């Protein structure tokens, strides 16, 4: 099992993909993972513009994630 990373709207444009699976050997802070993972590099410079969710709940960027979690990078909403 891996942690699932989903990218929506502008965040998928920056990443040039909609989903990325990463196997986490142990739980890790999300920001630490972003800072130290090449595949997540494109999102790094935009992180202050985004909300993040873990398993459908908005969380702080310093939250801990683990294998099996679903993490989503959410630009400002524009529904309605």
């Amino acid at each position, binding site marked *: 099992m891996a942690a699932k990373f989903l990218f*929506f709207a502008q965040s998928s444009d920056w990443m040039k993909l909609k989903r990325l699976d990463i196997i986490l050997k142990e739980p890790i802070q999300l920001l630490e993972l972003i800072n130290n993972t090449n595949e997540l590099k494109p999102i790094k410079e935009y992180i202050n513009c985004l909300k993040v969710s873990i398993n*459908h709940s908005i969380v702080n960027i310093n939250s801990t994630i683990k294998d099996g979690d679903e993490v989503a990078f959410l630009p400002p909403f524009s529904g309605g």
Partner: protein
Amino acid sequence: MKFITAGKLPTLEYAAKKVKSDKYGAIVTFSGTIRGTEKEQTIESISYESYNEMAEKELKKIVLEIKKTFNVSIFLKHKIGKIPVGEASLIVASAGVHRRETFLACEKVIDEIKAKVPIWKVKFE
């Protein structure tokens, strides 16, 4: 009930029927439609994307909270995918005892959707 659809939105008449009750004296319906301009550019359509599972959960929370706060009944549907100018992306119906809380509830639903639901306009054509 699913709040998000990629298919055709129901009519406002259908939405009003879903909230109508003998205990209510007011029904408010709202249709959010696609305008023909975006940042002063003429457009023909807007495409919407959603994080479906999370959006459905957030919409359910919003509806439950507003029903409780205003003592109203709420029906809403949000369309995703490509929507041409003039067509609706969102319909909301609220019903309450009096018009004051019914109008307020309808407006609050829309405000909450814009603030809390992971749905995005992703393409302007």
